[in-house]
């Protein structure tokens, strides 16, 4: 098990992003606000007072092409060198960061922000209202140098203008109300960068971006690491931080160790102080030897979207039969060895507030039920290998996934499902597809697959709007890869979104949840996480659960001699 889920989540995120032909995948991740679940907090207050000094050697996973941008790998990095307008707590509350205060007009269309005084970018320029406005206008422009692939798709439809109203005050006007605005601002990709530095172009900024954050990018040795140096003048930590002022550690050596053996090995040998994602096979070992910091994400679970617009999955009985035909709980245990929980609720992750826990017990492995459903659905013919057919057409299920992104742990689940579903008469075929082909849309034509594994991280059930909106008025919902068209479901979702009362909203969302599980447009097996393993002498590294769980090093310190 090994490449723990975080790796996988990052990958699948990217896959989805490619596949769904839109920037919005990123948005969805950005919305992962409410996810808390069993995040382990790095408390350890008893360890004594934080002491200054040392360089944290952090073994990360993938290297992005630029140090900031829309990919989750870039978010992790940007969190280190830039600050956001607002911060988001684990419980979803919006707290001050660069904005010390803000107000919203009654029509919910005008936001006024008060910016913290005396904040400087690390190139010496001042972070004032003008700088924030310049950033926002850049994100939402068509200038490829400044455009923000996360904020753009969220806000371009609703944004009207941003204006400076004083040296430290600014006003943002929307065309229509948009409640998630502050959530968007709280995400790392919306960190404020020095407008002066941005003028020197993307090539330069990708290498050495300038923000006001706790660390300064000193050098990016491509293929190897990014060297961060402490910002000695840091005075703009968010309210979620454990302390104000400069980071305790002198810097971070952010190493790209894509190989899990090397990454975990480097922690074992003491060459790294912190590593991302523990290989599943080492999960037990890691738990007994190291401190684990973990964030389980909300939104949809990691699921197999079943293409329900054409046979065989246009028949709900076949979808249900498929769900019954595999023991996914055992598969997840086998593949992830306890490093990730089983998730049997096809609709929602267990860390979402609207989660109905008994739904996770549905569709437990039952080969007889699967056979019965398939018989009913007319898939009665069987060939020598036991593969079912209907009207001479064999029951072939093709699963397209990117092998470049899917670590063997994930493959493992698919292979187990493949093997088990055979007993029910499914001929499951795996179609690993490399990244470049993915980008070129290979194996992703409407007739090229029956199943695609995907997930969508979000705070909670609001994700339904994206995943289950049917194609209405001829407008195709590109984010619904199972092509599941359920207008009554959509009505329930809309009702929930408009419900003012929280309890009523949750009830409606749960109604939708049950309907989704019952109709099984997708079959889930686990959820995603961000996990760090820490050496004993490192304290107070936490994950920014308000966003996607970016590691935060500004409160971290070493105990004992380093």
């Amino acid at each position, binding site marked *: 098990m090994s490449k723990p889920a975080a790796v996988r989540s990052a990958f699948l995120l990217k896959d989805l992003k490619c596949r769904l*032909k839109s920037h919005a995948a990123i948005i969805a991740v950005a919305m992962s606000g409410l996810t808390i679940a069993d995040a382990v907090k790095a408390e350890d207050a008893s360890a004594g007072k934080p002491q200054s000094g040392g360089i944290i050697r952090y073994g990360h996973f993938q290297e992005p092409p630029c140090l900031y941008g829309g990919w989750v790998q870039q978010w992790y990095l940007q969190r280190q060198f830039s600050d956001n307008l607002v911060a988001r707590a684990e419980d979803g509350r919006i707290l001050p960061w660069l904005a010390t205060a803000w107000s919203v007009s009654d029509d919910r269309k005008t936001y006024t922000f008060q910016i913290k005084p005396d904040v400087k970018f690390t190139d010496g320029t001042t972070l004032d209202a003008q700088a924030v406005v310049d950033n926002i206008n850049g994100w939402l422009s068509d200038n490829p140098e400044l455009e923000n692939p996360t904020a753009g798709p969220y806000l371009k439809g609703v944004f009207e203008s941003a204006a400076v109203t004083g040296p430290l005050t600014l006003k943002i006007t929307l065309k229509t109300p948009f409640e998630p605005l502050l959530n968007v601002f709280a995400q790392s990709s919306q960190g404020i960068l020095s407008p002066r530095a941005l003028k020197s172009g993307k090539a330069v900024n*990708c290498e050495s971006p300038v923000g006001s954050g706790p660390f300064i990018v000193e050098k990016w040795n491509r293929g190897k690491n990014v060297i961060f140096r402490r910002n000695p003048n840091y005075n703009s930590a968010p309210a979620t931080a454990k302390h104000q002022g400069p980071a305790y550690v002198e810097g971070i050596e952010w190493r790209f160790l894509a190989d899990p053996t090397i990454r975990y090995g480097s922690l074992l040998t003491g060459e790294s102080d912190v590593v991302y994602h523990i290989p599943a096979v080492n999960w037990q070992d890691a738990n007994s030897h190291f401190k684990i910091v973990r964030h389980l994400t909300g939104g949809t679970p990691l699921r197999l979207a079943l293409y329900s617009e054409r046979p065989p999955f246009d028949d709900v009985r076949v979808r249900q039969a498929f769900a019954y035909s595999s023991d996914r709980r055992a598969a997840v245990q086998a593949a992830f060895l306890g490093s990730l929980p089983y998730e049997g609720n096809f609709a929602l992750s267990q860390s979402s507030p609207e989660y109905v826990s008994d739904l996770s017990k549905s569709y437990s492995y039952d080969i007889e039920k699967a056979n019965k459903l398939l018989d009913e659905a007319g898939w009665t013919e069987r060939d020598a290998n036991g593969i079912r057919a209907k009207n001479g057409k064999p029951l072939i299920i093709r699963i397209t996934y990117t092998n470049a992104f899917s670590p063997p742990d994930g493959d493992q689940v698919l292979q187990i499902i493949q093997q088990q579903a055979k007993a029910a008469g499914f001929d499951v075929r795996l179609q690993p597809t490399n990244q470049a082909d993915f980008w070129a849309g*290979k194996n992703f034509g409407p007739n090229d697959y029956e199943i695609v594994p995907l997930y969508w991280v979000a705070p909670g059930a609001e994700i339904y709007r994206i995943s289950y909106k049917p194609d209405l008025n001829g407008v195709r919902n590109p984010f619904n890869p199972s092509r599941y068209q359920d207008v009554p479901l959509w009505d329930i979702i809309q009702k929930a979104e408009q419900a003012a009362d929280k309890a009523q909203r949750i009830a409606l969302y749960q109604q939708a949840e049950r309907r989704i599980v019952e109709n099984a447009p997708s079959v889930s097996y686990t959820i995603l996480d961000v996990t760090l393993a820490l050496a004993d002498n490192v304290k107070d590294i936490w994950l920014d659960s308000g966003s996607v769980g970016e590691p935060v090093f500004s409160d971290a310190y070493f105990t004992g001699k380093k």
Partner: protein
Amino acid sequence: MNAVKTIGNRSFWLARRLLSGLIVVWAAATFTFFVQFLMPGERAQIIFNANTGNVGEIPRDQLLAINARYGFNQPVIVQYGKYIRDVMHGDLGQSYVQYQPVTDLIARQIGPTIALAFAAMLTAWIITITTTVLFAGRDNIWSKALGGFQAFLATLPPYWLGTILLVVFAIQLRLFPVVGGNTLMGLVLPTMALALEIYGFLGQAVLSEFTRVLDQPFITSSRMRGTGDFSVRLRHALRHAALPGITLSGWIIGKLLSGAVLIEAVFGRQGLGGVLVTATSTRDIPVVSGVILVSAALFVATSLFVDLTVRLIDPRMKEA
């Protein structure tokens, strides 16, 4: 007069070799240029998707804009001409994905690859020379086992060997760093993984020639002068046996980049290999072409170096 003739010969030979080397590099450049049209997907689309994280059709105006910016709307032959002209000026273009000139990207990553390749080659030679001189052509079990051992090494997948070395020597025994980077200690394991495979081939080539040479009359002749065995091996036989080894080294260097890709992946090292794989998987064509071109040029250069070395060791070649 004799000397003048030799120099004349040599510069003539050198000029011819350089010319054919240039042709090879040009052919490689041309090949990679035209291969990009074989790859699925339209370039503008790839660039757009790479920069925005998107896939599939893109807005027509965006497509046109990118086509215009990169000159994709020009006839292929014009694009080719421009490409060759740029290459001749040392400009390998701009990465589609990485916001960097290709030359910068390569310049920054080529060092570790060359260091690894050089260290591996050097190590392989040292092991080859040591084992050959000590064990080859003797009437004992070691001598017999040597060839088998080399054949065995040649059949080990180098990245597999790398993994085993990494786990045993770095993670279990902690003799070497897991994340070595470019430190000397960090270079040891990747070097060994690559060098042992090279040694498998190199050693066999040198060994068989060494064994053959030991039976040559001039070796007997030297022994008949009272020269000691070790001296005969070192001063006479080794030079001869090294020749096929050097020629083989030229070939191996040509294949070293491919091997280095895997070794770099195993050990998480920087290097051209990683650049090539990333670029290929993202269809970052300028980078792909650049890496291919540079490695072809490296290959040509090392071949030339190898030939020069062979001619230095074996002056008879001058006349051939």
